[in-house]
């Protein structure tokens, strides 16, 4: 399978232009709309400079597009780019582990999409992005990638390539729950306050009234219908926002891959190979904890590093029980245990005893520069103690079979689960003070972007030693 070097879709120019205008929006607004009639002094200079800069940028976009090509040849993707300095990248298709598509509003209007292919490596050139591509071409490339898996799976004693099964599809109820949990409806309160004070101006209420409570009680009747209206409005806005982001959430899987699809208007898809999942992270914020919901994330080696997409999460508003069941179905290689081991009580004393470097640094700094603010040191000290106590109470861990599971956090918590084969290295550290308490710190890393380092401080030394021998006794 090979093809000639191809340029990106011509709409790439439009996308770059739109993004340039978006970035320069405030300059344009200021120079050419607010100061449209001014042609003197520095404004004139700024206008001239801006026009030169814009011309240069647009020329660059065109040149960049002209010299940028991709080619698929002998099961590799060859990317060439660079106007002055030529650059060529060769990415073997075999290396591609995950892929994502993202369709924003502009894509949708032009019937286009964007495609990101992630390789396992963790450096800056780990992923290949086609920011503007036709659906047909994207399908063609994805087909090439999946072709390899069919071949692989056939090699594995003719394992049947079963069709994809849908495991989860978000309902209206899920979306309402999501809207409620994300608190988007509360965004109205600042707006409400603004509206109230606007009204205040409009009715020309007595400004000189000193007593704000009196002031409120007189106009309470006004506030009430407004409040109802605002709540309805904001719940509506919150719901629409949630639908755009999380609506039509579908999780499906076949023997090799997990597919996630989400969003209305802005559609994103994400696909990951099951055996490339490095670890599982389960996050619970305080509100999710109260509602018994969890967010499950699959950690993979590649990662675009783009937090905005965040499609590696299974539905972020799933009931705990359902989420655990889904993990067992999708990733039979992972198993989550609910009850975990806590740190022994003496560790609390150790944690409280360890030096307070932050407090000392703040103390010295304030002593030298702002002695009247020295009390802040006390606040920092109290916060330090509080965070150590929380840390002690919410840290737990477990090693069972092939797995290591850790949990950390205070008001919100994070559970982390990985397998022995997925751990890249471990390190045990113990200081003089830790030795007095018979504990040690464990650190292990997983491949991801950025590298994922998990730390478990002040484990009993027997457990630390056991982790070490367990990791060292691979077959």
């Amino acid at each position: 399978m090979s093809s000639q070097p191809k340029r990106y879709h011509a709409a790439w120019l439009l996308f770059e232009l739109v993004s340039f205008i978006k970035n320069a929006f405030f300059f344009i607004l200021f120079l050419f709309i607010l100061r449209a009639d001014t042609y003197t002094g520095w404004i004139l200079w700024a206008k001239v400079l801006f026009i030169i800069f814009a011309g240069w940028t647009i020329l660059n976009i065109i040149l960049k597009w002209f010299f940028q090509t991709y080619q698929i040849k002998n099961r590799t993707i060859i990317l060439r780019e660079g106007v002055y300095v030529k650059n060529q990248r060769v990415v073997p298709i075999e290396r591609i582990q995950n892929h994502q598509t993202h369709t924003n509003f502009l894509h949708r209007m032009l019937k286009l999409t964007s495609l990101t292919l992630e390789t396992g490596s963790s450096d800056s050139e780990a992923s290949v992005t086609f920011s503007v591509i036709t659906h047909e071409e994207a399908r063609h490339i994805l087909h090439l990638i999946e072709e390899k898996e069919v071949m692989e799976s056939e090699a594995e004693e003719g394992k049947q390539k079963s069709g994809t099964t849908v495991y989860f599809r978000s309902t209206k109820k899920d979306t309402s729950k999501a809207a409620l949990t994300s608190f988007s409806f509360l965004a109205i309160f600042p707006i409400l306050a603004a509206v109230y004070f606007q009204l205040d101006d409009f009715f020309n209420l007595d400004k000189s009234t000193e007593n704000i409570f009196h002031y409120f009680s007189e106009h309470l009747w006004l506030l009430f219908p407004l409040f109802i209206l605002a709540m309805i409005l904001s719940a509506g806005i919150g719901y629409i926002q949630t639908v755009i982001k999380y609506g039509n959430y579908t999780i499906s899987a076949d023997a090799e891959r997990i597919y996630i699809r989400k969003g209305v208007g802005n559609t994103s898809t994400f696909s990951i190979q099951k055996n490339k999942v490095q670890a599982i992270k389960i996050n619970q914020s305080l509100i999710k904890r109260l509602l018994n919901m969890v967010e499950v994330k699959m950690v993979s080696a590649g990662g675009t590093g783009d937090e905005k997409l965040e499609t590696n999460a299974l539905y972020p508003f799933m009931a705990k029980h359902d989420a655990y069941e889904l993990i067992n179905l999708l990733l039979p290689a992972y198993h989550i245990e609910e009850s975990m081991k806590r740190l022994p009580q003496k560790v609390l004393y150790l944690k409280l005893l360890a030096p307070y470097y932050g407090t000392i640094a703040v103390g010295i700094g304030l002593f030298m520069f702002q002695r009247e603010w020295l009390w802040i040191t006390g606040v920092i000290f109290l916060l330090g103690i509080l965070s150590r106590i929380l840390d002690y109470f919410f840290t737990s861990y477990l090693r069972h079979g092939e797995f290591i599971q850790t949990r950390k956090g205070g008001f919100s918590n994070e559970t982390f689960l990985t397998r022995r084969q997925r751990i890249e290295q471990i390190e045990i550290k113990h200081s003089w003070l830790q030795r007095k308490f018979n504990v040690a710190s464990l650190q292990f890393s997983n491949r991801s972007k950025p590298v994922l380092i998990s730390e478990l401080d002040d484990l009993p030394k027997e457990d630390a030693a056991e982790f070490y021998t367990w990791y060292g006794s691979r077959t």
Partner: protein
Amino acid sequence: MYLQIPEPSRPISAKIVDIWRWTNTIGHSVTLLILGVLLYFDHHNNWVSWIDNVLYILIGLFIISAVYSIFIEPSILQKSWRYEISEEFVQLKHGRFNQYHTLIPMTKVEYVTTDQGPFLRKHELFNLKIGTTTSSHNIPALPKEEALMLRSQIARYAKVKDTDPEGEDVE
């Protein structure tokens, strides 16, 4: 032994103690010199008073750290350094007050290099750097033959993963 774990046994060259003493002396002298120059300008040009205090504190701290890292640390660190390389694992241990034990499976080793600076070259010693996908580790000061032998040995052991695709598809 504090932890009941198999510990590595091979030491690094004792010559590194003097080398570390020299390099630390140079490093600290240069820093102290820069601080001294700053102090001179401070007195000469009457900078703001707090710069004074900061400089004195820094100089004090650097003198303490110089005494530690020139006279005390090198021999402790050299004596505590141990490594072990087997067909399956790289095992490292170092430190006296803060002790570190590191365990890296051969299948996760991505590259191995040796390097030497002018001081190491004078004593025919090499650093051995072992890199994984997540970090890189340095075994300091190995005699030439040993370093080169280990380099090719690790390369050979780590290559096992070529037959086992990516060393990570094993479920």
